[in-house]
């Protein structure tokens, strides 16, 4: 017996329904499984993709950081991208430094099948991809990635498409390398498969483009630093370092190659300081820049003419050593006349007026030339000799060139010795002061003295002031010497004034331009007046026209302060400089000194006499005294008397005297004349 509850008879319909239900459940489960699989696969794929992207970026970043050259970083990026995207061919184009120029189609490729794409590669390297031309050109125009697909309507716009197609490619891509918004390079790739980049790839390539842009930027900064280290920022000419580098190079070539010669020209502007002081530093800078341009033009334009037999001029350089000093290095000169021709052209070009601060300014230069044929082995030596030759050109009246010779070398050596000896002289009392009486020609009486420094060297004997004063000025020792003379002369005057009871007796002391411009002149004078106790108004400071006119405003200020101390002021060498009469009127001076060049032989040269007359008239108009210096003959003295010079100084009356002799002369004058 079967138990119906335990063994029910299930109707067929119910079984069918159950099966259908189970089938539906199975389908649901299968669908759910497939969906879960799909989701997981998508996740894994995305993760994988992301990891690939990250490792690509990391590898490019690492290469970018390590690469010494832009090219190496780019090469690495090309290869990494090709591997990542499975593209067999990638190429680099670099933007030219000049933004208007085309892309440089480099020979840097990633090519997985060398040889196979030869035709496409040579075609690519031969095309000038200016803005808009080909895919790279489109990238430059749009600053955005660009791609082209075989069969697309615009495929004919791309010059390389037929060749790319022949090589088996279906799609071309180009991505920009950017610095900010500037396209500095283009990476292009060729794909055998027809594809368009998806968002992920575009994002990735944008990051790579930025990353590589930084490499280019770093390279540019490095080049700029290197350039700056070797160039003068004002003129963009080479600097001393670059010049010496090139010079070294030339010198080595000269030692190696028979008959190879070069020349160094040392160019120094004449009176640059006057422009700087007179028209301001901006004008000074403008003049330097304009000079640099003329010098450069001078070399560029005319080398063939200058050189005769020449082999190329690219190696000639103009450099700025600093201040107003320029050097020109002439490569491979045929003969010694070549640098002379260049020097003459430089002089001619600089003789043309410059326009500075809306004024026409005339400038000249002094040029020293040194030739490699003298067999130099040290760059400093040839530069020094060119410098010495330049100095001689200046000494011989400026606006000229001189070629270095051995005599110059000896003179330069003597100068150096003088410099050293002069420093010692000041400390060893080798300097002494001579006093030249200043006489009123009417009664022949001594009214004052001019203090003149003399140097008696144990070896060289008496060194003429014309030789050592410029040296002292140049090395700055003149301030110390000037102060010493001032002290000594005032102390001496004080003694005479007391001894001979002549409170009117005056002392003239020369003041150099250097003392006027940056010494503590006023303080020094005040101290000396105080210490010496000389009578008020008996110290007379003599300044040359040119030192006063170097900076008239400053001079005026100092003059007023000196006048405040009761000091008399005298303008020395009057008529030899270029003072303007309007400045002269403003200056609170007391005396004009007629230069000895007008006094000498003035009795027989009417023009000199007329100049002296004019100076005296001018002095009268301005209420000034006149002292004539350098009077040697009775005829000159009487001529001076006729034109009305108040005082006369010169060998006719007295030559400069040692203190004792001067004292004797004063003493004699005090005693009644023996009749």
């Amino acid at each position, binding site marked *: 017996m079967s138990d119906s509850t335990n063994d029910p008879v299930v109707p067929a319909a119910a079984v069918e329904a159950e099966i259908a239900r189970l089938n539906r459940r199975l389908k649901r489960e299968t669908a759910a*499984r*497939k969906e879960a*699989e799909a989701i*997981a*696969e998508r996740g*894994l*794929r995305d993760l*994988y*993709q992301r990891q690939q992207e990250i490792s690509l970026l990391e590898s490019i970043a690492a290469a970018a950081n390590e690469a010494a050259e832009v090219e190496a970083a780019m090469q690495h990026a090309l290869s990494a991208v090709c591997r990542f995207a*499975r593209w067999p061919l990638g190429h680099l184009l670099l933007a030219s430094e000049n933004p208007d120029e085309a892309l440089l189609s480099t020979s840097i490729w990633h090519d997985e099948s060398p040889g196979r794409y030869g035709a496409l590669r040579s075609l690519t390297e031969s095309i000038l991809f200016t803005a808009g031309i080909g895919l790279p050109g489109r990238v430059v125009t749009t600053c955005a990635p660009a791609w082209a697909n075989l069969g697309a309507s615009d495929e004919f716009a791309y010059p390389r498409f037929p060749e790319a197609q022949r090589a088996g490619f279906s799609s071309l891509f180009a991505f920009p390398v950017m610095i900010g918004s500037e396209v500095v390079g283009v990476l292009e790739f060729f794909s*055998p*498969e*027809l*594809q368009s980049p998806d968002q992920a790839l575009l994002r990735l390539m944008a990051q790579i483009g930025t990353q590589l842009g930084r490499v280019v930027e770093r390279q540019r900064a490095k080049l700029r630093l290197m350039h700056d280290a070797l160039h003068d920022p004002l003129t963009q000419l080479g600097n001393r370092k670059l010049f010496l580098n090139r010079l070294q190079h030339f010198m080595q070539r000269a030692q190696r190659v028979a008959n190879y010669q070069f020349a160094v020209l040392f160019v120094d502007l004449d009176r640059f300081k006057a422009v700087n002081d007179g028209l301001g530093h901006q004008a000074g800078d403008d003049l330097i820049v304009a000079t640099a341009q003329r010098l450069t033009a001078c070399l560029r334009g005319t080398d063939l003419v200058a050189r005769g037999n020449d082999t190329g001029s690219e190696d000639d350089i103009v450099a700025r050593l600093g201040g107003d000093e320029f050097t020109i290095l002439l490569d491979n000169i045929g003969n010694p006349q070549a640098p002379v021709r260049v020097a003459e052209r430089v002089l001619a070009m600089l003789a043309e007026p410059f326009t500075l601060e809306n004024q026409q300014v005339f400038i000249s230069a002094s040029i020293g030339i040194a030739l490699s044929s003298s067999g130099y082995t040290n760059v400093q030596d040839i530069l020094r000799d060119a410098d010495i030759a330049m100095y001689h050109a200046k000494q011989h009246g400026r606006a000229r060139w001189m070629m270095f010779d051995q005599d110059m070398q000896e003179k330069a050596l003597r100068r150096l010795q003088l410099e050293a000896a002069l420093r010692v002289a000041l400390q060893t009392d080798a300097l002494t002061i001579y006093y030249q009486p200043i006489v009123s020609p009417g009664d022949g009486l001594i009214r004052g003295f001019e203090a003149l420094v003399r140097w008696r060297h144990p070896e060289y004997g008496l060194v003429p002031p014309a030789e050592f004063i410029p040296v002292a000025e140049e090395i700055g020792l003149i301030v110390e010497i000037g102060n010493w003379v001032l002290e000594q002369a005032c102390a001496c005057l004080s003694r005479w004034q007391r001894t001979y009871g002549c409170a009117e007796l005056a002392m003239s002391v020369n003041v150099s331009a250097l003392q006027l411009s940056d010494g503590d002149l006023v303080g020094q004078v005040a101290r000396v007046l105080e210490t010496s106790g000389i009578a008020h108004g008996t110290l007379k400071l003599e300044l040359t026209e040119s030192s006063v006119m170097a900076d008239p405003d400053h001079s005026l200020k100092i003059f007023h302060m000196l006048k405040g101390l009761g000091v008399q002021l005298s303008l020395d060498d009057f008529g030899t400089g270029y003072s303007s009469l309007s400045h002269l009127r403003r200056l609170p001076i007391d005396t004009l000194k007629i230069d000895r060049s007008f006094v000498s032989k003035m009795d027989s040269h009417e023009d000199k006499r007329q100049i002296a007359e004019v100076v005296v008239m001018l002095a009268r108009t301005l209420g000034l005294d006149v002292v004539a210096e350098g009077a040697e003959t009775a005829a000159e003295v009487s001529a001076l008397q006729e034109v009305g010079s108040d005082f006369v100084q010169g060998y006719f009356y007295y030559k400069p005297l040692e203190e004792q002799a001067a004292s004797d002369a004063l003493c004699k004058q005090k005693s009644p004349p023996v009749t």
Partner: protein
Amino acid sequence: MKGIVFNLLQEVVCKEYGDDTWDQLLDDAGLDGSYTSLGSYADAEVVALVNAAAAALNLSAQDVLRWFGRRAMPLLAERYPAFFSPHNEARSFILTLNNIIHPEVEKLYPGATTPVFDFESVEGDRLIVGYKSARKLCALAEGFMAGAADHFHEQTEIEHPACMHHGADKCVFHVRFHK
């Protein structure tokens, strides 16, 4: 062997012979048959299934693989349309096999071993395809190629002059496609 291959085989068998046949094949092969596309399973299991199918259908194992490969292609096209859409012919699609299989397998199963294809173009419509795989599933590859031709509505003639099963170090197919 990757789970996807088992899934495809199941789908193809179920589609043509019904779900019961698949169950029967699993029973015959002594396998429990829970395969997910994300999993990786012993190569022996696919061999057992193919052998079971060969016995049931009275075909050689190679024929079963060829049949399977050919029938699986439409399913793949359905699952992964992105691999097919750039192409308008079987030949260019087949040329990308390495590029599809390698990264896709690598994505899901890092470190997996994959077959390697090489290609040599002879004349316009002829292609010499090399196949090298430790699994020696050249028949499956042949089936895939035939399936690809079907997908692009092309005729194909495939010769198999060298085979790893006959001692060659790689299989070589001479394939000719025509519309």
